[in-house]
């Protein structure tokens, strides 16, 4: 059964995964930049991108969670937000 608590946990884990992945990439990027490696800049960029994609991942989980709970109004609202985020990436 997909309870409210499971749903909250899913959202929390998605946000934390994005934040910690970003933090890891940023710290690794700083480390490599200090050694003069050209990969440092790429990792910093990847870290910021991971962070910026975290809200989109969270909204994707909202679409999934509300769909599973049968709350289609909120699933639709989440889907519209996801669409808007998609549009802003492509602009």
């Amino acid at each position: 059964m997909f309870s409210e608590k499971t749903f909250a946990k899913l959202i929390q884990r998605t946000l934390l995964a994005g934040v910690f992945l970003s933090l890891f990439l940023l710290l690794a990027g700083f480390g490599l930049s200090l050694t003069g490696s050209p990969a440092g800049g790429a990792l910093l960029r990847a870290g910021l991108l991971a962070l910026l994609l975290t809200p989109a991942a969270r909204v994707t989980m909202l679409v999934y969670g509300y769909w599973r709970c049968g709350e289609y109004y909120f699933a639709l609202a989440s889907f519209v937000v996801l669409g808007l985020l998609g549009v802003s990436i492509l602009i």
Partner: protein
Amino acid sequence: MFELTALNFFILAAFGVFIGLLGSALGIGGGIFMVPFLVLALDLPIHQAVAASLVAIVATSSAVAAVNVERGLANIRLGVTLEVTTALGSILGALVAHRLPAQAVQLLFAFTLFPVSALMFLKGRRGLSAPRRPAPAAAGPSAFDSSFFDPAAGAQTPYAVKNMAPASAVSFFAGSLSGLLGIGGGIVQVPLMNLLCGVPMKAAAATSNFIIGVSAAASAYVYFRKGLVPLELTAVIVVGVLLGSFLGIYALYRARSEKLQLVFAALTLLVAVKMLLKAL
């Protein structure tokens, strides 16, 4: 041109920690302080300052919301509904800002800070002097109604949510401010949810924090694609913001935010005057 020296690294990281703490305590992204700091202290072009601020807001929001969702403080149904108009406004704001000259954005920023300062002052004063009243009951139960455990009261606090239609319209304005000026929009969202929707302050701050991550990300994508995000500087601030946010979540959970509001009201007024002088 900004150069990332060891000193700058520590100043930026420390400032990021401050912004993260602020986000945890007040439910705002901290852009009202970050943009002026980057423009006035580091002489960064305002469009880059706005872009860096938006990325930092995503960091604060994601870190703080993760905990607030688990604690049941953030009202997800309310948040995702308001996110629709907020994200739309945010994208439009970013597109408009990109076409405006730097001086116009600075002036707009300065003029926005004056009412923000007054709002913070009034909110802080009311919070300190008046007893907390429950929100008036709505016409009937709605899907947005919720409750949360308030550690200060030591009890579950139920509340009804009302006025969703006007709240969605005002959220569009909050989103536009976010995209245009890099200020997240929490400064509009928190009083909006508290005064118009009847959401208790703590839940309003948590829900606002939940929303501003999406609105800031929507406009940050636009800035990122246009190459306006200063990579190293933003990365340092983000690391500081994440540390500050996690510290704040645990250190400030039981703190009363009203006294902080008064201090920040005065600080915002000072920043507004400085930004105005720089723009003129």
